[in-house]
């Protein structure tokens, strides 16, 4: 039987991170993954990540995946692909299907990082071809370059729903609506605002009644639900679509830990059935660890830190490091993890209706209901100031763990402070030079540069633009407001795309003065 010091199951963000930390401390590590490519969900993530510098904020998910893979290679981690772990037995014996054989392996530590699977909901016609999971849509678009459909309805307004909804628009699909049975948008407001300004309507307190079609989806009917989740008669709305995308949450894939005999619990806060773990991710069986979504649904940034903690803890469990090193490293990682878990979207606040930000600003009801801030609401936040000349307008209204804009500004115009969930404040004293670094650094695409003094009667608005083809300087188009409504004709006066922007292009458009605080998107004519 082939022996390793540490076997990691799953080569996603958590598994690779765990393997790296263990291998760096001298353990002989192998990672098994059932897919033909490593990286788990990271390679489908084409958007910039949130967080702070140490969480690799403003780097796109697939880039983080490439970095992790390189780090794993450098650390001497062996990654075996198309390798399906089919069993985990007593004394950490692992059976793996590779090619046409079942091979037995053994290790002193096993780190389970199997991730999660998508939840499904049932409605009339839910088994028709054309009803797909959001993960499938991402796989098709971002890995294989195939449009999942032409006209799509998204069910679920959590971060997955709004992020994938935006990516569908980027891929050239039409998103007819984002629907959620909950009364509030579940994802970050900035993600919702990105799709709202493209003209996608949100239907909250709505659910799917029926997917129509004989052979495949040809349409969908939704309806409003009351407080008991029953459809209110007469509220039905029909859309012609060829695809219905479901983003209704994830469940931990914890079967291996259960099979191994770890103590399990049903924990709705963690998204389902998970192994009970200590602070280092160690399960009730010494030497078996769980990291990432399998031990509680979060996102990739926290999965990577959990993985690193488990990797360090496994090294200690096997006697490769002293307790001091474990405690020191774990403390540092846990600090990074806890900063990600702060704010109104942190696990502690799951499901809570938060009315005020930490700073005491009112949370926009319109943002939670329709996906955008109203013209009146937007001026209340500390990132939005009226100033002479060019200046950033930061439409960031929720406490989310993210601070790249603060580091991006070479003139220190933007202040967030030590607490990365604080709202960014635009400093009226500092002098903006209009470099646009903040605009490109904002993972939520909620920073704009506005110059009310651009020329007599006209204001310039610089906005982040991640669509192809890029319009050319001088092109005429239509300016859309935050709700996606057509506001006025606009002219592109500058297009900037430098390497430091990492494919977030900066479009500067000229709008009539009264539209300077309204227009937030450019639609090609």
């Amino acid at each position: 039987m082939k022996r390793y010091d540490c076997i990691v199951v799953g080569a996603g963000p958590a598994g690779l991170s765990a393997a790296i930390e263990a291998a760096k401390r001298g353990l002989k590590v192998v990672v098994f993954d059932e897919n033909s490519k490593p990286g788990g969900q990271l390679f489908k993530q084409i958007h910039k990540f949130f967080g702070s510098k140490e969480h690799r904020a403003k780097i796109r998910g697939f880039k983080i995946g490439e970095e992790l893979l390189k780090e794993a290679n450098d650390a001497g981690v062996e990654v075996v692909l198309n390798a399906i772990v089919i069993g985990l037995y007593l004394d950490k014996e692992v059976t793996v299907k590779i090619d046409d054989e079942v091979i037995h392996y053994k290790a002193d530590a096993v780190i389970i990082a199997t991730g999660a699977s998508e939840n499904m909901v049932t409605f009339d016609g839910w088994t028709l071809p054309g009803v797909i999971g959001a993960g499938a849509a991402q796989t098709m678009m971002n890995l294989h370059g195939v449009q999942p459909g032409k006209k799509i309805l998204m069910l679920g307004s959590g971060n997955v729903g709004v992020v994938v909804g935006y990516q569908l628009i980027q891929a050239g699909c039409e998103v007819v609506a984002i629907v959620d049975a909950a009364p509030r948008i579940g994802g970050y407001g900035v993600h919702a605002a990105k799709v709202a300004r493209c003209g996608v309507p949100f239907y909250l307190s709505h659910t799917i009644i029926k997917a129509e079609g004989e052979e495949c989806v040809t349409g969908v009917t939704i309806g409003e639900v009351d407080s008991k989740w029953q459809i209110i008669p007469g509220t039905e709305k029909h859309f012609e679509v060829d695809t219905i995308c479901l983003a209704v949450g994830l469940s931990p894939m914890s079967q291996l830990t259960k099979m191994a005999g770890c103590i399990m619990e049903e924990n709705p806060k963690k998204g389902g059935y998970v192994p009970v773990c200590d602070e280092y991710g160690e399960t009730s069986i010494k030497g078996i660890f769980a990291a990432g979504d399998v031990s509680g649904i979060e996102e990739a940034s926290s999965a990577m830190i959990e993985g690193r903690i488990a990797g360090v803890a496994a090294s200690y469990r096997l006697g490769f490091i002293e307790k001091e090193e474990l405690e020191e490293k774990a403390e540092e990682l846990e600090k990074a993890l806890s900063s990600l878990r702060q704010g109104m979207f942190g696990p502690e606040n799951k499901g809570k209706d938060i009315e005020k930000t930490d700073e005491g600003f009112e949370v926009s009801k319109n943002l939670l209901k329709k996906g955008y801030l109203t013209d009146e609401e937007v001026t209340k936040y500390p990132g939005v100031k009226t100033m002479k000349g060019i200046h950033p307008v930061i439409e960031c209204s929720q406490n989310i763990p993210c601070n790249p804009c603060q580091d991006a500004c070479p003139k220190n115009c933007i202040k967030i402070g030590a607490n990365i969930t604080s709202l960014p404040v635009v400093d009226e004293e500092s002098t903006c030079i209009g470099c646009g670094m903040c605009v490109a650094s904002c993972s939520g695409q909620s920073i704009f540069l506005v110059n009310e003094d651009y020329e007599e009667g006209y204001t310039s608005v610089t906005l982040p633009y991640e669509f192809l083809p890029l319009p050319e300087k001088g092109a005429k188009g239509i300016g859309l407001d935050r709700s996606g409504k057509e506001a006025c004709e606009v002219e592109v006066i500058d297009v900037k795309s430098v390497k430091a922007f990492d494919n977030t292009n900066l479009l500067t458009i000229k709008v009539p003065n009264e539209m300077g605080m309204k227009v937030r998107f450019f639609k090609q004519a």
Partner: protein
Amino acid sequence: MSKVNDRSRDIGEFIPQPDDDMIICRCEEITKGEIRRAVHDGMFTITEIRRYLRTGMGLCQGQTCGKLVKGIVARELKISPLELESAVSRAPMRPIEMEVFGNEQVGGK
């Protein structure tokens, strides 16, 4: 005694519902009505439902329907899904051809 184990508990009559013919377990093509009826036939646990109907025993191994079946059974028993234990996890974790399953390299490679 937990509500799941109390077999003498009266859960009422089986009342047909309009969506009883909706498929829940796609792999084994088991409908909502069949699952609800199984509860009234005395199958209170997920393990029993699985053995009785084969829900969650097909290609995806309950990855898709596991939570859905739990919800339906719980509603029928008038308990929270949290009170129902998940199905037992056994090897092989993924569907596998018998030819491969039998080709075991116990000595490793």
